[in-house]
């Protein structure tokens, strides 16, 4: 009988690894991947959920030492509340993906791509993520981090016959490693002051404020790169959409969260002594990411790319919560810091659930129609009713509408921001409202974006032949989506239970929990005090259901039941056809015009050779031209400069060697 949650977590890691090994046989026996590897992955996910939940229910920090690693630097693992929460999150998504995967990978069985690679790297990817959150020393952390990054690179580049996928994969690999380098340097600073690579040594390190800030900046850059903060996010919308959809769900849903985990572990746990200035930096970058993410998402008509941009937005919202928390922690308001942290954690799990759900839904559409372009979709709700229902739940959740889960975390973030009056500093006090305003704008634009997505893809009439013939997907694929949709609803209507679970994390990290949050029973969520703010999600749901039910019951009696079907009215013009519908591009046009300055818009009307006018519109990311291209040019120029050394003449090389020796001698003496 296993009772130790850490042992359970260890078994989960072993099962994920076993799933990777079993998949190696999949090229010869394709059912191995569907049948056994996915089952093992599902079991691994289930065990992760149990292990994570048990440390959240009974707060504990269990440590162990692995017989692996270097002789003087054994790998250490630790399972505490924070690690448990992220393990739970990984487990939930892995389980859903394991339910969904068997149906989805069937289509690859007759393709040219290797099934062994798909299954093997999926298993390694999950193993890597689980090990990152369990690691208790910088060595294991970095090894697991690289395992996660490298295996996901191979998944991004899985269908490598397309040039776009290879390019996205290369960009992803490059960015992941620049980020990893920065994280490594950050740990280096901590290890230098703490005299050891174990996290226990780093926690006790006494850093002077300047070095602490250096470590913070390195970690913020490194983890921010991996989690896709603006302006270093450009790799994300390239890489996430090209992976197979269940992997996109894992990457957007979980891998970005593992980066958030790293940032939280580094700043709140290892670094400690948070300075308010860091909070300001995180808040500003988070707010900009949230707004830019949603604006760019609105401009996309590739469904998976759009969802990837929404990940940038949601990561921004998480960092707004974290920034508020750091700001309040740095100015000596532990209760408010705990509130910000809980809001950020709540949004973390929410985003994992609804973004996983939406990517699985996009995958289901891709599976049956082979379309990612929304301009070719339409009318899918009547053809794929269950996928349509689950996708709708995902859309409502991500648009932060009550009574689903996205609303709760946004409500908590707003409640944190509303406590800005507690700060002494007038500048900080007015910074927070601006950030709250950007969050409000983000939420409203996200709703607009998902009206566009759902309206264009699922409502209306089909715009292409494949979509007209679409059928709903297999039961397993629906079960994966259904599980996540159900969790979205549960997290929306039972926030008290979730906040109570999350409370152990701020208690451990900040020494203060939200003691009053659930003091009025399970019905009432009162984050600070009942007189400040209260929200009763179950009663809200009851009220909504009662209002809908009564009005529907009243009007559906007797003679009112009949509905006559007829042609669309459309102001009496000729019967509308599918090409007369509003497209995704047309829907977003007013917003493109209003926020035009923030995009790089390339719009032109040219007369083609056949005399037809041709309209072309291309909206690209400004960060690409402003940050990526200059850095790239600089790297090439530096390369050219160094390249001059390579003249091919032996005499020159000997001259350089002599010069170097002289300089070294001069340095030594």
């Amino acid at each position, binding site marked *: 009988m296993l009772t130790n949650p850490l042992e359970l977590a260890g078994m989960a890691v072993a099962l994920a690894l076993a799933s990777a090994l079993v998949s190696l046989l999949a090229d010869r026996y394709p059912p191995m991947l569907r049948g056994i590897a996915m089952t093992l992955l599902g079991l691994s996910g289930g065990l992760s959920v149990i292990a994570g939940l048990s440390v959240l229910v009974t707060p504990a920090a269990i440590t162990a030492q692995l017989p692996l690693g270097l002789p003087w630097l054994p790998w250490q693992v630790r399972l505490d509340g924070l690690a448990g929460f992220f393990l739970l999150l990984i487990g939930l998504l892995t389980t859903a993906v394991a339910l969904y995967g068997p149906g989805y990978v069937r289509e690859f069985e007759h393709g040219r791509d290797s099934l062994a690679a798909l299954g093997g790297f999926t298993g390694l990817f999950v193993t890597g993520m689980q090990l990152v959150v369990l690691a208790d020393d910088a060595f294991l952390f970095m090894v697991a981090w690289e395992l996660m990054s490298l295996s996901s690179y191979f998944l991004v580049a899985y269908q490598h016959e397309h040039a776009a996928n290879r390019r996205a994969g290369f960009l992803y690999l490059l960015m992941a490693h620049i980020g990893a380098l920065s994280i490594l340097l950050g740990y280096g600073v901590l290890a230098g002051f703490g005299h050891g690579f174990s996290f226990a040594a780093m926690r006790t390190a006494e850093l002077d404020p300047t070095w602490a800030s250096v470590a913070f900046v390195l970690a913020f850059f490194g983890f921010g790169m991996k989690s896709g903060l603006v302006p270093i996010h450009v790799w994300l919308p390239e890489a996430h959409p090209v992976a197979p959809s269940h992997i996109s769900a894992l990457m957007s849903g979980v891998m970005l969260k593992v980066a958030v985990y790293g940032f939280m572990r580094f700043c709140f746990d290892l670094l400690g002594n948070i300075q308010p200035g860091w909070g300001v930096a995180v808040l500003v970058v988070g707010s900009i990411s949230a707004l830019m993410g949603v604006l760019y998402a609105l401009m996309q008509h590739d469904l998976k790319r759009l969802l990837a941009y929404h990940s940038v937005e949601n990561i921004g919202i998480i960092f707004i919560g974290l920034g508020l928390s750091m700001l309040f922690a740095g100015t000596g308001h532990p209760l408010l810091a705990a509130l910000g942290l809980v809001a950020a954690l709540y949004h973390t799990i929410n985003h994992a659930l609804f973004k996983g759900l939406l990517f699985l839904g996009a995958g289901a559409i891709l599976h049956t129609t082979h379309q990612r372009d929304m301009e070719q979709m339409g009318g899918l709700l009547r053809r794929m009713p269950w996928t349509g229902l689950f996708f709708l739940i995902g859309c409502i959740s991500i648009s932060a509408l009550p009574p689903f889960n996205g609303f709760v975390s946004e409500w908590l973030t707003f409640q944190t921001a509303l406590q800005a009056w507690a700060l002494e500093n007038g500048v900080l006090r007015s910074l927070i409202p601006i950030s709250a305003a950007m969050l409000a704008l983000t939420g409203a634009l996200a709703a607009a974006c998902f009206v566009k997505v759902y309206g264009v893809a699922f409502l209306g009439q089909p715009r292409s032949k494949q979509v007209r013939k679409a059928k709903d997907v297999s039961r397993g694929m629906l079960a994966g989506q259904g599980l996540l949709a159900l969790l979205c609803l549960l997290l929306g209507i039972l926030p008290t239970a979730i906040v109570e679970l999350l409370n152990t994390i701020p208690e451990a990290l900040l020494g203060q929990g939200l003691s009053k949050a659930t003091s009025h029973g399970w019905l009432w969520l009162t984050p600070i005090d009942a007189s400040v703010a209260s929200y009763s999600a179950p009663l809200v749901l009851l009220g909504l259901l009662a209002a809908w039910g009564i009005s529907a019951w009243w009007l559906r009696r007797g003679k009112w039941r009949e509905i006559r079907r007829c042609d669309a009215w459309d102001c009496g013009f000729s019967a509308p056809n599918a090409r007369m519908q*509003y497209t995704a591009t047309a829907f977003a046009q007013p917003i493109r015009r209003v926020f035009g300055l923030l995009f790089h818009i390339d719009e032109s009307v040219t007369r083609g050779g056949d005399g037809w006018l041709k309209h072309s519109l291309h909206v690209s990311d400004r960060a690409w031209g402003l940050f990526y291209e200059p850095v790239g040019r600089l790297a090439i120029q530096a390369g050219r400069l160094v390249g001059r050394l390579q003249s091919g003449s032996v005499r020159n090389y000997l001259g350089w060697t002599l010069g170097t020796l002289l300089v070294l001698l001069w340095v030594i003496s």
Partner: protein
Amino acid sequence: MSPAGWGLALVQTLLFLLGAPLLAGWVKRVKSRLQNRRGPSLLQPYQDLGKLFAKEALMAHSASPLFRAAPYIVFGSTLVAVSIIPLLAVSLPTAAVADVIVLVGFLALARFFLALAGMDVGTAFGGMGASREMLVSALAEPAMLMAVFTLAMSAQSTNLSSVVQFNLDAGLALRPSFMFALMGLVLVAIAETGRIPVDNPATHLELTMIHEAMILEYSGRHLALMEWAAQLKLMLYGVLISVVFLPWGIATRMTPSALALAFGVLILKLMVLWLVLAVTETGLAKMRLFRAPQYLNLAFLLTLLGLFSHVMLEAGT
């Protein structure tokens, strides 16, 4: 949390349901008079609703189940939203269930389904209305939240009852933050309820419509629910502005005389407010769509200024 409180909340919701068409009739009548017309009777909106409820509902062949469910969701969400507004008395148990941020959330939920319903049949007008509605609301919602935050920060509570109570206790003090918030909220209310100069509720020109374009395909009881929800929303904003910024007269105790007084004062306030609305609607013309963002930016700036003047000048004093 007394049973009397819940009873009062129910009565207030019913008052909203019954009063909303009347107010819609009132504004129509005042506008007609200002335009030298006699105008329809005050009870005309009730007759319209009654007639629509009795009629057969039609649905396009291409409509999905969402089209059928949306009127109930829109109406229900708006109804729940109005139930948390203190109409007659301050201490309202429903205000604790859902605070003012949730109120904005309910309205957003109703709008989400309204816009989806507009896109469902697949006509160009429906999509156009949905696209424009989402643009207007995306710009109006932050302004609304900023105004609400100014109030919430002053009262140090997001509970609407507490905010009203705070304003009652504070007395007649001229706060710059409140003035800005009031101006911003009025602009937002006009935009969100689809009145002139942002949208025209009486328009029959397809290309200028926003709200009407989204419900173009509805008929019968479905249309009645959509119309009723729009009337409820108009009344909601009117009551919100009059109760929060001019709370005087609202009942603080649950005595019949206090409630009767509150009822009288409320009717007076709403009639005056709607008179102002009718006069401005008569005097202004509808803006082009792309002028609307400027208008809403003004609303947003006003409310943001309100919040700034609160955190800079008033907080902590």
